[in-house]
């Protein structure tokens, strides 16, 4: 969603904050190819200066995240995450496969607060952890899971929260945001 200068290292590499090192390595290789000077997908967008800046940011992202100590520091200082690295918990979501498309790992059921909570509980991510990682107030996260319409912020902010929440539980952010906002509109129109 953000141009590269505003993206954090994980966003730059298109990986989740809990991605393992092999996933990071693959993502870095793919990114270097995608933003090389002659790359089909990007040659027409970036001028040489910008391309250099982007490649330098990617290299910096890889240098930092591939070093466990630097990564822990980056996570804490920049993202405010305690420790995302380490062996994945039992039943944890695997990192994104290079060829994965959006929607790939969606639940078949609807995007409701309770469906999202079940998904989160199934993969064993505590709400506190998401609050910490995303810096979204835990109250809002609870309101999302409870479909508590009155407590939820304006749609413009809610969308951002939903995308971050979705990422944290390994779902496609846009599908979840779209689905949930639609769900909310239907709830609201039903009450009127």
């Amino acid at each position, binding site marked *: 969603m*953000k141009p590269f200068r505003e*993206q954090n290292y994980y966003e730059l590499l*298109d990986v989740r904050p809990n991605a393992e090192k092999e996933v990071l390595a693959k993502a870095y290789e793919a990114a270097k190819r995608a933003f090389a000077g002659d790359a089909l997908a990007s040659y*027409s967008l970036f001028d040489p200066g910008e391309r250099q800046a982007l490649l330098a940011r990617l290299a910096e992202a890889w240098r930092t995240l591939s070093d466990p100590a630097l990564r822990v520091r980056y996570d804490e200082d920049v993202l405010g995450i305690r420790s995302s690295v380490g062996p994945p918990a039992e039943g944890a979501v695997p990192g994104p496969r290079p060829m994965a498309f959006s929607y790939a790992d969606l639940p078949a059921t*609807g995007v409701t607060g309770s469906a999202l909570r079940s998904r989160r509980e199934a993969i064993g991510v505590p709400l506190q952890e998401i609050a910490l990682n995303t810096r979204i107030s835990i109250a809002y996260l609870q309101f999302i899971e409870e479909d508590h319409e009155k407590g939820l912020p304006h*749609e413009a902010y809610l969308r951002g929260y939903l995308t971050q929440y979705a990422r944290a539980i390994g779902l496609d952010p846009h599908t979840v945001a779209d*689905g949930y906002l639609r769900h909310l509109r*239907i709830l609201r129109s039903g009450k009127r």
Partner: protein
Amino acid sequence: MLGLGEQGRLVQKEIWAVGGGKGGTGKTYLSASLAIGLAKLGKRVIAIDADLGCANLHTALGADPPAATLSDFIKGRMKTLSEVLGETSFPTLRLISGAHDFLEIANPKHTEKMRLIRQIQDLDVEYIILDLGAGTAFNSLDFFLAADRGILTVIPEPTSIENVYRFIKSAFYRRFKRAVRHPDMKALVSCAMDQKNERGIRTPHDLMACVEAIDSEVGGRLRKTMAEFSPKLVVNQVRSQDDAALGLSMRSSCSKYFGIHVEYLGFVEYDDCVWRAMKRKRPPVMEYPDAVSSRGTGTVLANLLKGEQIAFDLCVRG
């Protein structure tokens, strides 16, 4: 989009537009494949040939040349769109053919176009598939923006990719311009549309930053518009793993450069079956349902439906 059905009950209606800038990237082929795929699932579908310059969707659907076309409607010879609906060999799939006297209506007046878009939105059906023409003319952009899902086809060639980027940017600016009211803001968007503008605005995100600096409230509204704008991408005529990965790099490029989130729906392999069937005026997905290309369009449809499944489930429950 929610609409009222025949008996006044709430029905889920989706408009999907297929565009992509460059000619010959498979817009018509994909539109026909999606429409047929939906019809085979028993959905009520209307496929509309919105390529006002060069209509050929009926051929891709294996349907007979139509008795009435869009031009009859646009020129007012027929009052409603339902009068120009044609049948296909699929019971739940109907067709609105494009114009043939294209010189007359390739560029309909704005009011004519808006009347057309309104009537499209009012059609009583579950799915509407719009096959757009090549290019980034306002015609294509307006249909694209009127859809619930805007799908772009790209083939692994420089001109096609450049055209898709241009399309995304133009569509976004057009949507942006509609979302603001103040003449100064509209002027700013016009300025941004000129690639060599003196304000140095080169991307939608630059424009956003500029607007936010002037008026934070309008800026916030536009940020929302930007977050909601999410074109879908299909890579067609794929011949290698690299070609298939193009969708991922384009998605990443769009977010890194434009600040726009694109969704990659999947790819369709290059397959001789496609043109062989098209040459015989038969839909490839019917002639060769097990071909790799048909599996590709099937995946694209499944991904579109999975996104939608969610909303539909909610509709039933809510």
